[in-house]
C-alpha cells in the first residue's frame, strides 16, 4: 500500500528532486530501523545457528584421528544408518495414525461445540483446550504415571473385568500409548482453530440450506466441512511437521522405559543423543538436516496431492 502511494507521488511531483531524495533516504533508513531488530534476532538466532550446523555436518570428528572434511559423507551414512531409517519409519507410521485421529477428534468436537450453544459447551470448550496449555513435558510425566501399573488407574479398571492391565511401556503398545498422549495434547488446540473457522462462516448459508431442506447432518457434512477445508489443511500441515519432529514425549518417557524407547527412537532423539550424549555434533547436525529434508519432502508431497484446495497459501 505505502509503496504504491509513494510511487504515484514520485511520478506526479517532479519538483525539488533534492529534497525528495533526502526524504526518501530518511524514510528508507527509518524502515530499516523498524525491521532491524527483527533481522538481528532472525539472523543471530535462526540463520547463524543453521549455517553453523550445516557447516558442522560436513565434517567428521573421531576419538582417534581428529577432525576431517567429509563433505556429504555424514549424509550418506545417515541414509544408510538403520537406526536413523527405523526412526524415520517410526515417525512416518506415527503420523499416519496419530494425525488423522487428532483431526477427526478435533473436527467432531468443533462441530459439536459450534452446533450447540449453552453454558456447558463454553465450559467444555475451555476444558478440551486445556491439555494444550499444559507443557508437553509435564503432560508426558503425568501420562507416565497414569500408565504405571502401580500408580495408574489401569490396574483397577482392568481388574474389574479380571483382566491384567496393558503395559503401555512395552514394545508392542508404546506406539498406542504415545498416540494417546499426543492426541490428548493437541486435539483441543486443533479444535479451537477449526471452531474459529466455523464461526467465520456466514450463518445465512445455513438458513439457505435449511430452506432447501438440509438437515443438521447435511449442513455439517456439505456446508461446514467444505468451508473449513483450508483450516483443516493448515492444521494437517502443522501436525505433520510437528509429528515428524517428535521428541518431547518419548524423551521424557525414556526415563521410565529405557529398554523400549532406545536413544534412536525418533530421528530428533537420535540427533540429540549423537550431539549431547556421544559428543558427535557433526553427525548430530547431519541427522538434523537429513530430518529436515524428510520433513520437506513429506510436506511438499502432501501439499502437491492436495493442491486443489490450497487456498490458504
Amino acid at each position, binding site marked *: 500500500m505505502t509503496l504504491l502511494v509513494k510511487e504515484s507521488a514520485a511520478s506526479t511531483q517532479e519538483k525539488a528532486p533534492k529534497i525528495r531524495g533526502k526524504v526518501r533516504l530518511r524514510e528508507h533508513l527509518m524502515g530499516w530501523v523498524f525491521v532491524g531488530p527483527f533481522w538481528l534476532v532472525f539472523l543471530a538466532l535462526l540463520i547463524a545457528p543453521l549455517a553453523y550446523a550445516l557447516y558442522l555436518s560436513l565434517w567428521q570428528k573421531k*576419538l582417534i584421528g581428529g577432525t576431517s572434511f567429509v563433505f556429504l559423507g555424514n549424509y550418506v551414512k545417515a541414509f544408510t544408518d538403520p537406526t536413523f531409517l527405523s526412526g524415520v519409519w517410526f515417525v512416518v507410521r506415527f503420523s499416519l495414525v496419530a494425525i488423522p485421529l487428532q483431526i477427526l477428534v478435533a473436527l467432531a468436537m468443533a462441530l459439536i461445540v459450534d452446533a450447540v450453544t449453552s453454558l456447558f459447551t463454553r465450559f467444555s470448550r475451555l476444558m478440551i483446550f486445556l491439555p494444550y496449555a499444559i507443557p508437553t513435558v509435564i503432560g508426558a510425566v503425568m501420562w507416565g504415571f497414569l500408565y504405571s501399573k502401580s500408580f495408574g488407574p489401569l490396574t483397577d479398571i482392568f481388574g474389574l473385568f479380571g483382566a491384567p492391565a496393558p503395559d503401555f511401556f512395552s514394545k508392542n503398545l508404546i506406539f498406542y500409548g504415545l498416540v494417546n498422549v499426543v492426541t490428548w495434547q493437541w486435539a483441543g488446540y486443533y479444535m479451537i482453530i477449526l471452531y474459529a473457522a466455523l464461526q467465520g462462516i456466514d450463518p445465512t448459508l445455513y438458513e439457505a440450506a435449511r430452506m432447501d431442506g438440509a438437515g443438521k447432518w447435511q449442513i455439517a457434512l456439505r456446508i461446514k466441512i467444505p468451508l473449513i477445508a483450508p483450516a483443516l489443511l493448515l492444521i494437517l500441515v502443522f501436525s505433520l511437521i510437528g509429528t515428524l519432529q517428535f521428541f518431547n514425549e518419548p524423551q521424557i518417557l525414556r526415563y521410565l522405559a529405557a529398554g523400549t524407547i532406545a536413544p534412536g527412537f525418533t530421528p530428533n532423539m537420535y540427533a540429540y543423543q549423537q550431539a549431547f550424549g556421544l559428543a558427535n555434533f557433526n553427525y548430530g547436525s547431519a541427522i538434523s538436516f537429513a530430518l529436515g529434508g524428510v520433513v520437506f519432502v513429506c510436506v511438499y508431497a502432501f501439499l502437491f496431492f492436495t493442491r486443489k484446495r490450497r487456498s490458504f497459501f
Partner: protein
Amino acid sequence: MKTKRLLVTAAMLAAASALAACAPDAGGGGGAAGGSAPAANDAGGNNASNCTNTISKKDLPVVTFWGWYPNMQLVVDNFNKQNNEVQVCWTNVGQGGDEYDKFQTAISAGTGAPDVIMIEADRIPTFQIQKALVDIKQYGFDAVKANYSDGAWKDVSIGGAVYGVPVDGGPMAMIYRKDVFDKYKITPPKTWAEYEQAAQKVKDAGGPLFGDLGANVPAVMMALQIQKGASPYTYDPAQPESIGIKLNDQASKEVLDYWGGLAKKGLVGTQDQFTPEYIAGVVNGKYATYISAAWAPGYLTGAGVGKGEDTGKWAVAPLPQWDSANPVQVNWGGSAFSVTSQAKNPELAAKVAYGLYADDESLTDGWTNQIIFPLNLKALNSSEFVDLKVGFFDGQQANKEVYVPAANAYKGMTYAPFGQYYFDAMTKQISAVIDGSVSGAQAADRLQEDVVGYAKEQGFTVQ
C-alpha cells in the same frame, strides 16, 4: 517530526537494551551466594557466582565443582570451613548421565566445565581419551597415596597417570527380603544355580518375583559378566588407538542367557530400575532380592524403602557365585573426583579433589547414612565402620559380613573409552533379550558387532 523520530529512536534503544538484558550475566555479580572471588569471571558451568553453597571466606580463590552425593552440601561446607587456602563452589547439575551429557557438551564447546567434577570410575577413560581430565599425580598424590588401597587407585588410573581421587565404591552383594525367604523356607543362595532353584521354588509356591533384570542398568550386566570371567576391554594407554573388544566370549553369552532364561521363565521381573514403578515394587515386596551395590541401602532408604511397617525386613548376603570354590567379587558404580582440563588452576583444583570428602566428619556422615561405601582407608579400616550394625538390615553387621570382604577381594577392571555408547548398545540388547526376540548368545554377538563397528568408525584399531 523531529521529536517523533527522537521518540522512536529512544524506543528502539530501550528495546535493544532490554534484549541485551536477557543475556546471562557472565560478570559474576548476580548470584545470590555472592562468590565475588578473583576466579569468578568465567562463563557457564565455571561461573563461581552460581554456587548452591554459601561461601563465607570471600577473599580466597574459588574452585568450581559439580557433584551429586545426597550429603554434598554438608561435605562442601566442611571442606570450606576447614580450608584457608581455597573455597569450593558447588553445583548439582544432575546425577550420572545427566551430568555426563552436560560435561560432554562443555568439553566439545571448550568452555563451561567446572574445575573439579564427580564422575563414576567407569567413565574416566571416556573423558580421559578426549583429554578432558588432568593427571593429578604431580599435585600431591604422594601425600594421600596411603589413604586408599591399590585397587581403588587402579580404577581411577590409566597407565601411570592418576585421573581421579576415589571417594566411594560399589562392592556388589545380594540384598534380600528376610520375610519372603522365611516364608518360603529358603536360605540365601550361594551360587547362581541355587539362585535359580530358589526362584523356582518361590514361584511354584505362588510367591513374588525373585529379582529383576533391568534393561537400563547395563553396568550390572557388565559386572556380572566380568564375575564369570569376561574381560570386555583390553586397552593400553600407551597405544590409545588400539583396543581389544571381547563382548561375545563364552562367559558373556552364558550370563546373558542365564538372565534371559530367568526372565523368560517368569522368575524375575523385567522392570527398568531407578523408576517409581520399580521402587513401588520393591516397597510392596514384589521382588525377593535386589542384586546391587553397597550404596543401594542408602538409595533405597532415600526412596522410602524399609520404613514404617517394612522396617527390618531386609538383609544382605554375598553375591552368588558361578564357582563357589573360586569366588569373584565385582563392583557397580562408585565415584571419584577428577580435575578437568578446563580448570584455571589445576594445582588448586587438585587440592580440592584430594581434600573434599576426605575429612572424618564428612566420611562418617556418609557411611552412617549409607550414602557412600567409603574407599578412604581411614573410614574403611575404622572399627566403627566395620562393626556398624546397619539399621536398614535390622542391625546386621553388613560391612563386616559382606561388603568389606567383597571390597577387599575386588581386583579392579578395565573400562571402555566410549562408555556411553557401550552402555546404550548393551541396554538395547538386554531389552531384546527381555522381549524374547534374541537369545542371550545372539545378543552378545550383536553387541560385539555394534560396538566394534562404532570403535572402528571412531578410528580405533580393533584387535
